[in-house]
């Protein structure tokens, strides 16, 4: 399985539930395209729910960073929700854990955009 994305709206916040693997190739490009479409359609507050992400590689990390930079530069916000141990470990090793706004609880995360 590569990656599956489900997008839903919670108030003004667009939540993307991501499941599967975010790796070089289909996984990374699917996520990149989805985020670009959302930004193009003026969705600027985006919460990426990664609780069902089983694997992420350096390309996947690169996509998160690229999306974060792009959305922030356009006046939006990209936040992360529900990191697995593996993803959290990788973000800590790459010193990105403190760059992203990371949440454990969805309701709390959604309120943080206000």
């Amino acid at each position, binding site marked *: 399985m590569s990656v599956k994305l489900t997008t839903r709206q919670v108030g003004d916040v667009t939540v993307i539930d991501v499941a599967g693997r975010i790796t070089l190739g289909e996984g990374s490009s699917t996520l990149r395209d989805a985020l670009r479409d959302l930004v193009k359609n003026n969705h600027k507050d985006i919460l990426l729910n990664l609780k069902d992400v089983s694997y992420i590689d350096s*390309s996947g990390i*690169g996509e998160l*960073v690229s999306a974060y930079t792009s959305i922030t530069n356009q006046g939006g916000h990209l936040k992360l929700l529900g990191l697995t141990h593996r993803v959290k470990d990788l973000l800590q*090793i*790459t*010193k*990105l854990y403190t760059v992203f706004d990371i949440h454990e609880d969805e309701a709390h995360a959604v309120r943080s955009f206000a």
Partner: protein
Amino acid sequence: MAEASRTVEQVLDSTLESVDQAERVALDLARESGFGEEDLDRIGMSVRECVVNAVVHGNRYNANKKVQLSILRTPRQFTVRIADQGEGFDPAALPDPVAGDNLLRQSGRGIFLMKTFMDDVQVRRLQPAGTEVILTKNLVSKR
């Protein structure tokens, strides 16, 4: 019981499918060696990152160029050699991906992750062309 020493060698196409294949082969052998789940994760990711570099940056998906995968397991070490036929690069010239100015770069974390996850990483230019990366994980402390 697993054999004391074992070698696996494969020649891979310059495709992303080869990345999955290399990871699968390496993990099968690493599992036989008795590594725990965390080490298996780290070996698997290091091999993936290395073969991605070989396919994408080294051979640039060129169908005429191959990636050589050699895995050697001894009672003391698990060693993976990955060689491409690309133009080569200077590893010392790679920017530090965890330095402040580089944190938000989209790429450049692969070798850093390999060095974090493995006990030793050697990168060497091959003649007349290509790059060889040798990833080593020690088994001694697992016994």
